[in-house]
């Protein structure tokens, strides 16, 4: 098994002929790498993450994840089990009524036994400082709590790669700090989308920016633009 977890080769994507998003995009994520993904609003950052887990298919180009080229829906089942995507809006991600059920949803789909699932739920919540949240109603949580629970639902699947789409947007300072501290401690390779430079410097090892549908490397010392 090689060291490259995700590789996009010359990937293009458009939402219809008059709305191209990505054009000839190359990207790779290696084991133990943490890549910051920058780019203006609407430049296709979220789309790039969606392409990796097969929520949308490229109009041309190749998506290779965990050493295999993925093209059909069935190819992506394994990808989704091993790559955890954290959505921008936690309300989209938390769809079960209670926290425990939401965290259990992924592991159950992966065919874990009831006993294992209970253990995973307890452990995951514990590790995020959410012990005792099991029976809380998801829509009654605060914004920061929702984000952490959403992260818990992703981590409960024990992913090899994390794709974090603006993990701190809309959170206050305290909640941001908490989320950042937790993400910084995670061992997984990850792609982090954010507009927060300070956050990215703290979390990531490499920086790329989406400009007009292509990725270009960013010099970490460069002044902030876009």
């Amino acid at each position: 098994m090689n060291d490259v977890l995700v590789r996009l080769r010359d990937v293009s994507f458009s939402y219809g002929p008059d709305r191209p998003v990505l054009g000839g995009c190359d990207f790779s994520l290696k084991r133990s790498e943490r890549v910051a993904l920058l780019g203006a609003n609407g430049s296709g950052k979220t789309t790039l993450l969606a392409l990796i887990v097969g929520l949308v298919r490229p109009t041309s180009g190749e998506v290779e994840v965990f050493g295999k080229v993925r093209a059909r829906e069935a190819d992506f089942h394994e990808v989704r089990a091993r790559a955890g995507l954290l959505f921008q809006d936690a309300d989209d991600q938390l769809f079960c009524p209670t926290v425990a059920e939401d965290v259990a949803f992924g592991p159950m789909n992966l065919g874990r036994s009831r006993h294992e699932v209970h253990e995973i739920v307890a452990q995951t919540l514990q590790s995020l400082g959410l012990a005792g949240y099991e029976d809380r109603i998801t829509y009654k949580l605060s914004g920061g709590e929702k984000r952490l629970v959403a992260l818990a639902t992703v981590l409960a699947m024990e992913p090899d790669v994390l794709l974090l789409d603006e993990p701190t947007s809309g959170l206050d300072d305290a909640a941001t700090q908490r989320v950042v501290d937790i993400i910084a401690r995670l061992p997984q390779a990850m792609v982090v989308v954010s507009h927060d430079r300070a956050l990215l410097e703290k979390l990531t090892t490499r920086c790329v920016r989406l400009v007009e549908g292509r990725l270009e490397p960013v010099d970490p010392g460069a002044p902030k633009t876009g």
Partner: protein
Amino acid sequence: MANASGDSVSLLGSSPSGARRSLVDRLDPRSRIVTAVAFSVVVALFNGFPALGLAMGLAVVAAMLARLRPLTVARRLAPVNALMLLLVAMLPWAVEGRALAALGPFEYTWEGLLRAAAISLKANAVVLALVVLLGTLDIVTLGHAMSHLRVPDKLTHLFLFTVRYLDVLRREYLRLRAAMKTRAFRPRMSGQTCRAYGYLVGMLLVRSLDRSERIVAAMKCRGFRGRFYLLDHFVFAARDAWFGTAALVLLVLLALVEWL
């Protein structure tokens, strides 16, 4: 919703706390649903006052066993009885019999009044039983119990998703309303008002559709392939067997009172 929910009546809340769990709270939700449905169907068929009175009495006893607060119960029954008042006011004019009052050619009859009273009694007994047996379940448990009772999956999912996203939708609606208000929108009898409301509803629909797509994406990301697994399992205990048997015997007795 919050003010209507006492300790054990939780329409959208979490499970009642352990300290105040009443006899009814400790029953298996499945036996409660089955009993509630059986009671409603049987009582709906009754017409005689003795059986209806006994049914009402049973429901009241059950409410006491569930330790429901009288005020909470009254609040739950209020909408039903508002409807029943209408019935008492209207129905007797349409039934023939001994006249109590007359308005021109129309007569307000004793027989009609009796029938309206029977219907009121019936409605109150059924709703009270539902409040006691189902109103004390939190909605999530109700959904799971439905699923365990082999209610079609689609229906159960629809139910649970509705619970989950009702509040999200409401907040979206309030945001849109606020956006309208901050730009000095005031409803008037005008084409512009109609159009604005049209946009509001349309926007809400479009956003819901968008959101549903994102939710499906989130579910797929976590390995969803069309099947829901339930985390909770219910326990059918000895007390459920006793409760079920007692309920059955009482229903049969009620039926005997009505039809013999």
